[in-house]
């Protein structure tokens, strides 16, 4: 098969071609988004800069690196961006700030499942799937009001979200668009009556339940058919906190594991003196991948800062030291492990190359906020 033939086959496999996307109906949501964005803080148009021209001619056609936005952002913009550009900061705030007020002693020894940890966990759904083939594979978000757990069997996933009760009307409206009659059917689960909706493909299903207490429950999965979905979710059950935490695989870092995991992750990582581990000891539950991202990001940001300060001062030795530290991150075991899961490692490795090219690595969206 020649290149043209292969390209045609690939093009035919495009699930969202231009024509399909053009025909998607957004019912004004598009213009709402435009107005909402414009009503946020004004763009970062510096004095003397002529609107319509690139700030730096050399960058005219350059794609922004991980987000130059953060480094040059003004305070007002920064506040907004912290909300919108979510990423690690959101998780960090959610997992730490709310439950560990300023002044608490996060480095005090934590019992297996400390009281504060249990208090949060007790407030969440604590669901497990009563089927040994299905394991908890990821916890990208975990607070009392807003959390997400993904169960997996091979490549199949079942995603459970609990969201603030106030989000229910919005979620429901999404499924019950007046222009597209809902295709929901009744479902009863965990003692709650909800509705099962089809999204996209016929087997991509989401069950939405009215709020009970402080959160609503939403369960999404594509396991081949409606019958298979119903059979699977019927195996969901609520367990006590110890049982739920005991069901976590090694790919999930619990607060009680954090000191050991941090030691392991940093074993071959050059860390600047005074590196603060405290924030990571506050994490309640997080997938190992994201935990690794938080820890290595903090390490890297220390080196980025040294590089930038040294550059300003003309201290080439310090710049070189920082550059070598980040370039050496290709050998960090934790990043090699994470590289099998996502692209965080790749980004950091590219930062090392940027530093070697005399480019400020902090100009990367989502880092070092």
């Amino acid at each position, binding site marked *: 098969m020649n290149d043209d033939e292969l390209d045609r086959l690939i093009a035919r496999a495009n*699930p969202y071609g231009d*024509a399909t996307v053009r025909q998607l*109906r957004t019912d004004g949501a598009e213009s709402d988004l435009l107005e909402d964005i414009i009503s946020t803080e004004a*763009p970062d148009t510096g004095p003397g800069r002529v609107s319509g021209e690139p700030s730096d001619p050399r960058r005219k056609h350059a794609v*922004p690196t991980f987000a130059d*936005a953060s480094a040059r952002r003004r305070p007002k913009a920064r506040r907004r961006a912290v909300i919108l550009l979510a990423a*690690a900061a959101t998780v960090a705030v959610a997992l730490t700030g709310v439950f560990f007020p300023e002044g608490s002693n996060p480095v005090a020894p934590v019992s297996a499942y400390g009281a504060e940890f249990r208090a949060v966990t007790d407030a969440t759904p604590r669901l497990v799937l009563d089927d040994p083939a299905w394991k908890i594979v990821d916890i990208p978000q975990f607070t009392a009001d807003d959390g997400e757990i993904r169960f997996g069997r091979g490549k199949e996933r079942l995603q459970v979200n609990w969201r603030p009760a106030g989000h229910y009307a919005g979620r429901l409206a999404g499924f019950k668009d007046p222009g597209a009659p809902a295709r929901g059917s009744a479902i009863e689960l965990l003692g709650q009556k909800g509705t099962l909706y089809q999204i996209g493909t016929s087997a991509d299903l989401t069950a939405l339940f009215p709020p009970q207490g402080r959160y609503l429950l939403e369960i999404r999965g594509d396991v081949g058919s409606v019958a298979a979905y119903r059979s699977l979710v019927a195996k969901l059950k609520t367990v006590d906190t110890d049982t739920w935490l005991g069901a976590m695989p090694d790919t999930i870092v619990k607060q009680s594991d954090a000191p050991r995991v941090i030691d392991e992750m940093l074993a071959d990582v050059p860390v600047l003196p005074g590196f603060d581990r405290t924030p990571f000891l506050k994490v309640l539950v997080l997938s190992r*991948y994201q935990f690794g991202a938080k820890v290595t990001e903090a390490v890297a940001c220390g080196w980025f800062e040294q590089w930038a300060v040294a550059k300003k001062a003309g201290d080439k030795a310090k710049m070189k030291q920082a550059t070598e530290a980040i370039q050496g991150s290709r050998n960090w075991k934790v990043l090699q492990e994470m590289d099998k899961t996502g692209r965080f490692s790749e980004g950091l490795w590219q930062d090392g190359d940027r530093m070697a090219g005399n480019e400020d690595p902090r100009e990367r*969206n989502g880092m070092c906020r």
Partner: protein
Amino acid sequence: MPDHERRFRELFDSQFRPLLGYALRRVGSPDDAADVVAESMLVAWRRIDEVPVDDSARLWLYGVARRVVANHRRGELRRDRLAGRLRQHLVEAMPDHSDLTGSTAVIQQGLDSLSDDDRDLLMLTAWDGLEPREAAVVLGVPARTVRTRLHRARTRLRTAIGDAFGDSGHEREDQPKRPAQEEQ
């Protein structure tokens, strides 16, 4: 209307759909695509002075979206209230792809088996319709590098799909047709 606002409105009008398509092709779910679009457009608004004024604005936006998606794969793309309405509408408006089988499924499985870089490159050229030099801009690599990488990516995909299409590489005639023919 301030000049920067006029520029952003023009950018939004001309690039919303292409960006939405880009996002849907990468993340699959309308929920996530709405968030990727909202976040990428917000970055563009914040940095409107840096968005190229010519046709390469789309490449600039794709570059932003690519990093947003990378963050998303890290599991960090949280639901953005800006994208709320768009998300809700897209959920209901999505076409049904449940009957996409045969050659499409084989290719998609083949793409899934590739590295992120290989898959990105093939999608940019075959799905987003970019020339290799344009894909190079999105990926932030030299054009000559991208041509070599594209060759390797195609080779790896051929290996991944095995003999599903025989030596000729033509789609088998017994495959069902797509529900909507796409423009090439």
